[in-house]
């Protein structure tokens, strides 16, 4: 690991910390103020990110996945606010309780964030290097030369010519290059918790494969805890150890990636997998999910959020929110799945 402790002499807690932090999200609820009152974009989400793992959160637009990711930085912007729950990060505490300067310092040093469309999140008027110096100054980095060296190393690690990229403006870089610059910015202050929001959207297949490989390698080399937010199951399948499926602000299924993909339990997970056209096998087996994903205004306040599109809908789904039930290493929130499991248990008895 090309660690440069000298690059972060001002860090009180960061200087000593070199290990991947664990994250425990508990009962997280984020609401947005609308003319129709406060509506939840994220409801009662429980999710652990074990130290050193890559977790993928999959969801469609409006599922609340980006809001969930922003909560890790306590960066939900008005009219949104975290109304309940906690986000405990090792070495940092509950970020929901952090305010002002403490919060600003935590972002970047503890939590690195690669924004959705990182391609467009750079300042078009400044070279990458100038933006790096801005970042260093705002975080009180004493040795800016070391910071530039570290950035160059990171870019080199990702297959780019560091010096040249630092000298470039955004428009001089391709989409795949900008994405790597985004990852560099997330890591250069030595954060060990990294959140990537849609890291490969708008990239083509070969560039996507390269970025995913880089995410995996950098994750291992630097000892990170990584959260990847995406709408693309393929991205998660390729990169994540654990997978959480989000729908209408709720986590409907989570567990080890291979288990969830190989044997999906929740009807939404099943539907999503079936809706992916595949390269081999009978292409006619691909099925579209009926209906469409809910928006903030149409997420049902009571009962299961997926019932409108669910082939297994039961009466209880109208009124009761299905609790997350453990199935081995997996958590599934579905009344129908529980009814089937209960039936199978009865038969065995």
């Amino acid at each position, binding site marked *: 690991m090309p660690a440069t402790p000298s690059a972060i002499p001002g860090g009180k807690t960061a200087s000593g910390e070199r290990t991947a932090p664990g994250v425990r999200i508990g009962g997280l609820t984020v609401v947005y103020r609308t003319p129709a009152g406060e509506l939840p974009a994220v409801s009662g989400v429980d999710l652990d990110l074990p130290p050193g793992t890559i977790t993928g959160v999959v969801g*469609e*637009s409006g599922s609340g996945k980006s809001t969930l990711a922003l909560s890790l930085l306590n960066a939900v912007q008005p009219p949104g606010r975290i109304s309940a729950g906690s986000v405990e990060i090792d070495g940092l505490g509950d970020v929901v309780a952090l305010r002002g300067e403490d919060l600003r310092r935590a972002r970047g040093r503890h939590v690195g964030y690669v924004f959705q469309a990182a391609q467009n999140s750079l300042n078009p008027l400044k070279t990458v290097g100038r933006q790096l110096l801005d970042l260093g100054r705002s975080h009180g980095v004493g040795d800016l030369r070391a910071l530039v060296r570290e950035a160059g190393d990171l870019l080199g690690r990702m*297959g780019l010519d560091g010096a*040249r*990229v630092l000298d*470039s403006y955004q*428009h*001089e*870089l*391709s*989409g*795949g*290059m900008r994405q790597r610059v985004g990852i560099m910015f997330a890591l250069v202050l030595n954060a060990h918790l990294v959140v990537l929001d849609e890291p490969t959207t*708008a*990239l*083509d*297949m*070969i*560039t*996507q*494969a*390269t970025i*995913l490989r880089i995410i995996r390698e950098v994750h291992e080399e630097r000892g990170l805890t990584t959260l990847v937010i995406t*709408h*693309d*199951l*393929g*991205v998660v*399948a*390729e990169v994540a150890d654990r997978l959480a499926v989000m729908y209408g602000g709720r986590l409907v299924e989570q567990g080890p*990636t*291979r*288990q*969830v*993909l*190989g*044997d999906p339990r929740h009807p939404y997970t099943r*539907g*999503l*997998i079936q*809706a*992916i*056209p*595949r*390269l*081999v*096998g009978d*292409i006619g087996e*691909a*099925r*579209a*999910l009926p209906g*469409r*994903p809910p928006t903030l205004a149409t997420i049902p306040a009571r009962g299961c959020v997926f019932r409108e*599109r669910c082939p297994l809908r039961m009466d209880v789904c109208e009124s009761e929110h299905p609790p997350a039930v453990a199935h081995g290493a997996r958590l599934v929130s579905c009344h129908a799945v529980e009814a089937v499991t209960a039936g199978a248990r009865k038969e065995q008895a």
Partner: protein
Amino acid sequence: MITGQGITKTFRQRGGVLGGREVRALRGVDVAIARGGAVSFIGESGCGKTTLGRILAGLESHDSGEITIDGVSMASLRPRARRPYFRRIQLIHQDPYSALNPTRTVHQALTAPLALRARQTGRPKGWIDERAAELLGLVGLDPGYALPRYPHQLSGGMRQRVVIARALTVDPEVLVADEAVSMIDVSLRLGILALLRDLRERLGVSVLFITHDVATARYIGGDGELYVIYRGQVVERGPVETIISAPVHPYTQALLSAIPVLHGLEVPGGQAVTPVGALEEDKHDAGCLFARRCPFATGRCTAEVPVLGRTGDIPQEHACLHPERRGVVAMPAGRA
């Protein structure tokens, strides 16, 4: 039937890390889209596939080569006379959010081109509204719901359906779908793809599908032809299933290898090909254009120019001096 022969196009740009100078977007491409057929272009961004689609739709000029539509050479016609020909080819944009005027209802978006159409074909005024409703039904929307609405009141999937309905107002022979589902929610994508497939069957329109996702190309036009394009050149061409199951050009193999494997459901193909470097860094023009990124390149590859054609017992056309079948596509995992 639309054909293009020896199409070339060079863009001139200025400055930057990516080089600047000239970009040869197309270097002599032959293409043919049969009536009711399906043709898919695949390749990385910047390979020229979108430019080729735009040229075939009459939205972009080309430097040399000839385009014919139903046997008529476009070069022989004056620009005004070309219009009715190119109207038969309609482009469906990637972004349904910007393709529709936000200040116009769906009704307005559809009836404006239909009114023109009614004048041209001498139909009564009543036909316009009738046809608008009919077209919405055809793309799977409820006319009563959709007609009075503005684009922002519709979901992305619905908007893309409206865009398709609008393209159908001029009774096109070819729909050019350029990354038509990449901005649509995952659970709704397949619905749009199924619609395009359905329109082929029901209306006999051909579909030119431009994408970097080979699996969606297979879904739309599994019975059609696949063109693999690299740096403005077709490097492999043939039936979709043939190329997916036994690609021989290392670039095709690299594209197919890059498709994520659904671990747990699939196992990797085993002979995955990773290209060296990136497209934007590849500037060499001597020999095979892919030679500098090809892990199998030999000295011959940088000296000799491969020509698209058939060799040996390989059923598809390819432009590789050392064609070899490789198993790069993920296979279904054996389920217990």
